[in-house]
């Protein structure tokens, strides 16, 4: 938290204790803002949406300023200024604004992540801030301006504007800036005036050089009020370093200067605008302290209390100096309810994930203890020990319920993943020149947090693929009699103990003949007798690509194989269905949690191993004749016209044997990453749920083993890494 300055030590409070809540809240506001921005279109006049977006930025700004995150507060401040003009309909929404605000949201996410100690280097927001400023102040084009490329403007070269050239209704001001660490930063102000048409003129009066106090001086002719100038100047220099003195004021009726419309947000942003010999303000104020009371208002303290002691940091002069009080036009209009912020009333508590994981571990231990007791209980005579056996079966039931309840804590809705796609598709579609609409179904479907994190990348790839390779360009779609706008649908639903996530598109679909031809060209085992499903699965083969041109969006056909591998590693599976010309559907099936797994326990000599049930295809009794030797020591077995490599677990794990193994054995066919192998074992013990323990964390990584579990009798059983076994046997 390098940029964090925590204020407020004065009352003995450590504000950093509230940072966690602030970050969570800012994250929610950012996500909310993005959703709302994505729903905006050019020229949008949806007051509810505009107010809600404004409030998101406003809320982040308030918190950031309070908790000392200056960069976040500064960026949200300029966003807020733009959004305020939009919600007041002083400006009209443009695509450029939406894009810039979305980009700003990304930058805010980056800044917040840095403050939370996340990675990423420092980020210079100056260019972005300048762009937002240009949009706010009506310079529509707003090209990104690389400061280095801009010609440095010095007093010697700049054409001095005559002091008489006062814009209509305008003023001539002396502006002092400093003391500055980098006085040359003030030259950016000259560029600012060059970029914003109608702002007025600026010329250095110090010959382009700072004085010994490192203060720079300018003369400005402008119609803009002080507040607006300060907003603009603060893109480049700190507000508190700016002093504005009016020389000529054609805008004010009397000698007083025009009041600044808005006060700065942060205390550090308190502008000491030395402009105004101000008459006393209407409200009785202790405003220099950052608060005040209306003198005759209900509940106001007696007069002697009102006079607050002068606070050391000079606070916004805007209020203290205002002579003319505007009638309260806007205040009378209550704001309407927000959209997209409807979850405020949920009664939730935030708990660190470690606490939940600890709970899950303890429940895991409990499950194991219960299994041990159950095993012992079976040896008891149910007639003699009736109370005991009843108690044990109750225990089993409640442990199961407890386990489910605890696992449910880690469950979070798929919306967390789905929410990232509207933005991604929008960017993608505009890059590809396509029109794509996203539909989501079943966002409320819940999945374990760990799985959600791991499924995000594969899903991202599938969605990207659907937009890139699936959805056709608008003209092709119209020619095919489809709507110009393509649809990508994300759907999630629970099915038994699994979740099924589908990525569907109504694009061109897969061409079976083309797939098979491509596969043959690539030397992949493809033939006309394949089922459609098998043929479609070819796209999961490493190095396979159906796009005739490689695009920078979906890459070169690497990817789908990685998608499948990642999903398999999570104990899941992928299936493809497609109708040419009508689209394609990729279904991902995942277990609901990684902490518990359905396994098949197998005996090898004295040892027990667990095979993930999801990867078991079948088990077959094997006679010695079925086994054929190939090459040196390799053995294969023929199963349904396919020769499968044999992996003898006792040899692989060097399990000591008391007696020689029978010539016959039991073979379990397992499948992973599109390949099958036959595992040779001594016996099938049974199927049950096992609590997965991380072997790496407790011991070290062992090839061929993905984890461990504790059996009912207290012994440890290793869980086989099916993907590793298949890879090893086939390559």
């Amino acid at each position, binding site marked *: 938290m390098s940029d964090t300055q925590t204020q407020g030590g004065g*009352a003995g409070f450590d504000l950093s204790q*509230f940072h966690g809540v602030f970050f969570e809240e800012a994250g929610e506001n950012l996500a909310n803002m993005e959703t709302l921005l994505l729903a905006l279109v050019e020229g949008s006049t949806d007051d509810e949406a505009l107010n809600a977006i404004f409030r998101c930025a406003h809320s982040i700004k308030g918190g950031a300023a309070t908790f000392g995150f200056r960069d976040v507060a500064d960026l949200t401040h300029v966003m807020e200024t733009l959004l305020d003009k939009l919600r007041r309909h002083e400006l009209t929404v443009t695509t450029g604004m939406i894009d810039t605000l979305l980009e700003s949201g990304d930058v805010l996410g980056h800044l917040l992540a840095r403050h939370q100690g996340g990675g990423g280097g420092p980020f210079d927001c100056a260019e972005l801030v300048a762009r937002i400023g240009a949009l706010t102040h009506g310079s529509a084009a707003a090209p990104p301006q690389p400061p280095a490329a801009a010609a440095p403007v010095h007093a010697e070269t700049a054409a001095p504007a005559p002091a008489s050239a006062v814009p209509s209704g305008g003023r001539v001001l002396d502006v002092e800036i400093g003391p500055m660490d980098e006085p040359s930063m003030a030259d950016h102000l000259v560029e600012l005036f060059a970029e914003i048409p109608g702002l007025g003129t600026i010329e250095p009066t110090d010959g382009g050089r700072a004085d010994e106090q490192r203060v720079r001086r300018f003369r400005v002719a402008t119609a803009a009020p002080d507040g607006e100038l300060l907003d603009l100047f603060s893109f480049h220099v700190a507000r508190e370093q700016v002093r504005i003195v009016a020389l000529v004021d054609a805008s004010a009726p009397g000698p007083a200067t025009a009041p600044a419309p808005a006060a700065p947000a942060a205390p550090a942003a308190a502008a000491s605008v030395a402009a105004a010999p101000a008459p006393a303000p209407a409200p009785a104020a202790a405003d220099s302290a950052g608060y005040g009371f209306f003198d005759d208002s209900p509940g106001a303290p007696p007069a002697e209390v009102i006079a607050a002691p002068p606070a050391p940091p000079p606070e916004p002069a805007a209020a203290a100096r205002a002579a003319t009080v505007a009638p309260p036009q806007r205040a009378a209009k209550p704001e309407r309810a927000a959209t997209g912020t409807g979850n*405020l009333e949920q009664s939730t508590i935030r708990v660190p994930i470690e606490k939940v994981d600890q709970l899950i571990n303890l429940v895991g231990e409990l499950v194991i203890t219960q299994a041990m007791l159950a095993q012992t209980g079976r040896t008891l005579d149910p007639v003699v020990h009736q109370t005991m056996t009843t108690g044990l079966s109750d225990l089993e039931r409640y442990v199961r319920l407890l386990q489910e309840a605890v696992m449910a804590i880690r469950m979070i809705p798929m919306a967390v993943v789905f929410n990232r796609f509207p933005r991604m598709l929008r960017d993608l579609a505009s890059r590809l020149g396509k029109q794509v609409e996203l539909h989501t179904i079943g966002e409320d479907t819940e999945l374990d947090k760990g799985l959600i994190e791991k499924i995000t990348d594969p899903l991202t790839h599938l969605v990207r693929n659907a937009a890139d390779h699936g959805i056709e360009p608008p003209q092709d779609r119209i020619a095919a009699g489809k709507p110009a706008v393509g649809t990508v649908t994300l759907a999630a639903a629970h099915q038994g103990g699994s979740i099924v996530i589908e990525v569907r598109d109504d694009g061109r679909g897969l061409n079976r003949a083309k797939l098979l031809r491509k596969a043959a060209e690539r030397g992949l085992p493809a033939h006309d007798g394949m089922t459609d499903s098998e043929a479609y699965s070819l796209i999961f083969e490493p190095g396979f690509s159906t796009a005739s041109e490689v695009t920078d969006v979906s890459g070169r056909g690497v990817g789908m194989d990685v998608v499948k591998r990642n999903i398999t590693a999570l104990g899941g599976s992928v299936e493809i269905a497609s109708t040419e010309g009508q689209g394609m559907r990729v279904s991902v099936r995942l277990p609901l949690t990684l902490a518990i797994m359905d396994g098949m326990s197998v005996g090898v000599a004295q040892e027990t191993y667990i095979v993930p049930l999801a990867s078991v295809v079948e088990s077959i009794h094997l006679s010695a004749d079925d086994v054929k030797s190939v090459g040196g020591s390799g053995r294969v077995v023929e199963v349904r016209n396919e020769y499968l490599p044999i992996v003898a677990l006792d040899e692989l794990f060097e399990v000591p044997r008391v007696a020689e193994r029978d010539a016959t054995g039991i073979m379990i066919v397992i499948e992973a990453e599109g390949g099958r192998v036959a595992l040779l074992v001594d016996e099938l013990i049974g199927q049950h749920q096992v609590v997965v323990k991380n072997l790496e964390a407790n011991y070290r990584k062992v090839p061929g083993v993905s984890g461990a579990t504790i059996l009912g009798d207290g012994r440890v059983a290793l869980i086989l890494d099916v993907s590793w076994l298949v890879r090893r046997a086939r390559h």
Partner: protein
Amino acid sequence: MRSILAVDDSASMRQMVSFTLRSSGYEVIEAVDGQDALDKIDDRQVDLVLTDQNMPRMDGLTLIRQLRVQDRFKRTPILVLTTESSDEMKQAGRSAGATGWLVKPFDPARLLEVIRKVLPQ
């Protein structure tokens, strides 16, 4: 024990304000917006209201007006927490019936300072 109604849609601000006030011996009723405040306060009396301005559903000024029409809140100090200290804002606060304002951001010390002024010990 003096009770304070603290209304803000930002959870972190609410937490900061409540923590500060509770540590100083006040009872705090939290609300997430004007409507929530009216619901929570029900038939209770509070000694002070602190409300944010810009909130969903019901903003701070509307809340103040709704409170001031009730007899029991006629004389209750109500402070507006605001990021703007412009005269326009102040005038709006004044006509809605606010007692005063406190500019955001503020730190706990300043919050307690202003509260001690309207709620003398």
